[in-house]
């Protein structure tokens, strides 16, 4: 029989044929792997998405780290240490995925760090916020990680294989983090009036940030959004708004059952449309935050930059021993 496989070898195909074949693979639900041919816009979208995710895990360790030594018992100290270590591990896993994607551009992790310091590489809005009390450490675990589980499970079936596989592990660990956070919050909720006040204040402080975490509903809100392209190429399935609605459905009853008041008097579930009605967060503030204008953006970046500069001699030393 005539062997036609060579016709599908990327090197003998035109760009149009490659793209058509790639699109067909995506539509068939096949996984794209690191060495497979992929169009530049797909690669670029992945680099942007995964580097932002990875660097957010790393920058996200900083606000929680503030509470690691202060955790109020040996058990809580061990819990939060394990949790923050996991987050750094996720960061590492994701940066490895991005490093493979950046290879054709001859870019490395050092370039990503430079992008972070110059503001080209953004990180999640929530990690620009201050953590003022121990309750904030609980809120991050319970609700921020809870929100992250919702956005990340949305990409578990991502068309890019290495990202999908990294997410499998990350999501499994995030479930433990949410339990860790919930356990902190439950202890406070069952505690003294001061402890209860601490979680209410924390919720008041974090609510808008939690809504912003899912991103704007449409690109008209903030001027840009990658959600259309990521859905078309099966990197994700649901829109930002669908994810935010899922968050309400999952967490509004839980928050209220603890006797906490959600700081939005307009929040309600509309039976007719099957949607939660809620007050929009200030999207201009969101834009300002992710561009590095959040309450703790400069300090967190400075912390990262200082340590990067202080350790330059170590990287040089390692390069020497590896040579």
């Amino acid at each position, binding site marked *: 029989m005539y062997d036609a496989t060579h016709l599908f070898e990327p090197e003998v195909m035109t760009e149009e044929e490659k793209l058509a074949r790639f699109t067909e693979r995506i539509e068939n639900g096949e996984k794209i792997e690191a060495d497979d041919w992929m169009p530049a816009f797909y690669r670029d979208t992945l680099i942007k998405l995964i580097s932002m995710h990875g660097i957010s895990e790393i920058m996200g360790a900083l606000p929680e780290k503030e509470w690691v030594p202060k955790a*109020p018992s040996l058990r809580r100290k061990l819990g939060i240490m394990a949790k923050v270590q996991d987050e750094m591990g996720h960061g*590492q896993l994701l940066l490895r995925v991005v490093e493979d994607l950046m290879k054709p551009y001859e870019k490395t992790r050092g370039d990503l760090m430079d992008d972070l310091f110059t503001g080209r590489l953004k990180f999640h809005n929530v990690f620009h916020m201050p953590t003022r009390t121990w309750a904030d450490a609980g809120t991050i675990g319970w609700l921020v990680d809870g929100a992250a589980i919702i956005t990340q499970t949305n990409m578990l079936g991502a068309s890019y294989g290495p990202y999908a596989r990294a997410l499998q592990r990350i999501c499994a660990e995030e479930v433990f983090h949410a339990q860790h956070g919930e356990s902190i919050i439950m202890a406070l909720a069952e505690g003294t009036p001061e402890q209860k006040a601490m979680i209410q204040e924390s919720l008041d402080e974090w609510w808008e940030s939690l809504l912003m975490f899912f991103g704007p509903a449409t690109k008209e809100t903030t001027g840009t959004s990658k959600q259309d392209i990521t859905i078309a190429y099966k990197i994700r399935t649901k829109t930002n708004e669908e994810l935010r609605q899922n968050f309400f459905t999952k967490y509004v009853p839980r928050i209220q059952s603890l006797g906490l008041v959600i700081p939005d008097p307009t929040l309600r579930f509309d039976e007719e449309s099957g949607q939660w009605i809620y007050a929009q967060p200030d999207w201009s503030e969101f834009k300002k935050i992710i561009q590095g204008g959040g309450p703790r953006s400069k300090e967190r970046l400075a912390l990262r930059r200082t340590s990067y500069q202080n350790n330059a001699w170590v990287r040089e030393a390692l390069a020497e*021993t590896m040579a």
Partner: protein
Amino acid sequence: MTEQERTALAALLYQLADDDFLYAFRGSEWLGLAPHIEEDVASSSIAQDSMGHAAMYYQLLEELGEGKADALAHVRLAHERKNSILVERVNGPGYYMETPEYDWAYAVVRNYCYTLAKKIRIDALKNSSYAPLAVAAVKINMELYYHLLHWQTWFTQLYQATPTARQKMDAALEQVLADFGDMFDYGEHGDVIEEMRLIEGQGILLDRWYQTLTPTLVELDVTLPEMRMSSNGRNGEHSADLNDALSTLGEVYLIDQSAVW
């Protein structure tokens, strides 16, 4: 057990518990600031293990009737602490949340010298006459193998790298040895601790530490600076660094000691 023996046993357990508690704290201050992300993952795992070891020792003290483990860890004042001076020293200038100017060479040398001392103590404690301590030592020993391997690798690698690295390592070694004098000291209850065979004599362990370290130093052509005792932490004599560390470690717990956190 006589009252005197019980006091001596508690004194040793406080030394072990406070050492790992402070060591884990200093490690956790590095979180997010290590030279690369892989190292952040590894060293935060070591800090976490060490906090677990501290928790085991505080638990042994609780079982001995010294009070609740959490209170022992969080409430005791600096002059009541029995940790070595080395573990209470700051990582460098600056608070961990604002512009910390930490020195990785100091971290590597401190962690290596401390972990080697800990390994030697743990090996000795496996034969402790106090059975619960011997059981704890066996558990701790399993994790310690990796900690020691990790810091030994860094120690050797940095010493063999650039002239800058070697210079920084030398300075760090000088600094570490200047505080190392109380590491194997058992403090004022030392005689009873040794008589009870809770652990081998301090002189034996110190010799063993030198002997284990020597081949590495010879290979790297490093002369060990003079070991000094800046003050004896085992008797509750501490530097101001410890006060600051304790206020951070107890900040939330001390808001309300009777609350459940």
